[in-house]
């Protein structure tokens, strides 16, 4: 297949394709979806009280962006998610590394962690509302409980998979136990930790929006709920798109941080 044509390569598993074709394919699919949406709505085939036209969504976006609603709710959601996620990560990452690295830590906390991990955080929301209300603290608690136990398990798996030869060879180079932890175990887990944070951040978004949909007085989920009550589907779409874009940007930020801080993970 040395002289395969572009056409051949498109249909051969794992073959690289030209950059132009790659970008083009993405545009074609996105364009088709947009065209389908436009066709269904502008033609009047689907009533705009169910599915607004792209134009209406755009107009809603401009209106909500200029009158400050969008920024207010986005700022509140971002504050909730970053605080909750930060608090969870700060505890879960070191604890996860110790759980993966030390059998005794695993023995102590693994049973509780596994129990909590299978408890859907959404089922705790009513209790949390009862205990701490519907403000910022409750959202942080939901995000914390939703991500913490997942992070701990994922990070401990990363730490557990560090190859034993790395420890052995370090001992023979004169490392003591503290050096084994700080200079071998911790750096060896860093790429996996960052991947874990990236993945769990996506889940944190879900928990946040659910919490805001259940009970809140501000935030993007609340904004969507208000739009539903006001029978304003265009505003619902604005909320959904904003959440999607924020999630995407966070994901890109994580990738960028990994590449910038760990050049060795992508050096070839």
């Amino acid at each position, binding site marked *: 297949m040395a002289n395969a044509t572009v056409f051949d390569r498109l249909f051969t598993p794992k073959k690289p394709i030209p950059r132009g074709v790659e970008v083009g394919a993405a545009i074609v699919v996105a364009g088709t979806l947009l065209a389908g949406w436009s066709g269904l709505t502008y033609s009047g085939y689907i009533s705009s009280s169910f599915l607004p036209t792209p134009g209406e969504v755009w107009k809603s976006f401009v209106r909500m962006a200029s009158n400050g609603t969008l920024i207010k709710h986005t700022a509140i959601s971002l504050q909730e998610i970053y605080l909750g996620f930060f608090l969870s990560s700060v505890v879960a990452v070191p604890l996860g590394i110790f759980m993966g690295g030390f059998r005794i830590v695993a023995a102590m906390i693994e049973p509780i962690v596994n129990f909590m991990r299978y408890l859907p955080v959404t089922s705790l929301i009513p209790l949390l509302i009862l205990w701490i209300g519907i403000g910022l603290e409750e959202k942080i608690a939901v995000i914390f409980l939703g991500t913490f136990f997942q992070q701990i398990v994922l990070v401990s798996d990363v730490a557990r998979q560090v*190859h034993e*030869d*790395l420890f*052995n*060879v*370090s*001992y*023979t*180079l*004169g*490392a*003591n136990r503290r*050096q084994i932890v700080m*200079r*071998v175990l911790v*750096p*060896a887990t*860093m790429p996996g930790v960052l991947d874990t944070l990236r993945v769990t951040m996506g889940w944190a978004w879900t928990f946040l929006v659910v919490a805001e949909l259940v009970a809140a007085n501000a935030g993007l989920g609340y904004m969507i709920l208000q739009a539903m009550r006001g029978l304003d589907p265009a505003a619902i779409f604005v909320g959904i798109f904003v959440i999607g874009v924020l999630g995407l940007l966070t994901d890109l930020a994580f990738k960028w941080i990994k590449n910038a801080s*760990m*050049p*060795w993970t992508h*050096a*070839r």
Partner: protein
Amino acid sequence: MGEVQIDNVSLRFNTRRAGTVIALETLSMTIPDKQFAVIVGPSGCGKSSLLDLVAGLKDVSDGHCSVDGRGVSKPGSDRGMVPQSYSLFPWLTVQKNVEFGLSLSGMPKAQRFDRANYYVDAVGLQAFRDAYPSQLSGGMKQRVAIARALAVNPEVLLMDEPFGALDSQTRSVMQELLLDIWEKEQKTVLFVTHDIDEALFLGDVVYVMSARPGRIIDTIDVDLDRPRDYEVVTSEHFIEMKRRIIGSLHAEVNKAMTMN
């Protein structure tokens, strides 16, 4: 000084399936300072475990290991280790990998830089000083592992099939490189392999090990002149020694196969 003494050493461990397994049984050998000793044996014969015992990474069940008269109780930088693979720190460059052991002991930066530099040059990787392990071939990675072990100036170098994962051309280049360095550095080497050619080409002495329980079943003094050249593997004497080792291993390999 790096005389290694292995004195009536046994190693047993418990498994769920087979009960108590005797990996090594009352095994003794004395490796004089600066000798290149090779242990050859079938896989699973416990030859890697023997290295771990000398390194202090495993505890003997019976017997005693010592280096230069000091009993082995835990790992230390007087016994450097070169494992088969996966042993470089992927987050450190070649230079920093070689500096790693020196930085553990708190050697000043300039001094450890110079020292690591010297060994990076010695293994011929000066052009890859700032490369990460993921950018290196298998042979180059093992060169770094050797340089890293030598940089802390151990008395004994423990090598656990260090070239086992390399293709045969790279392997013979690495063997020559290792002999070259060994002649300059004058270290005691305990080298484990299952490759008979490799054992005879490198070693002053070759110990042939049996399958479980691991025992020494033959000892061959390799009286080939040094420095050795790869031509030597086709010499009559070399082939004669090789035949002897194959003979004693053959029965053992069969035994090992039926046991597992």
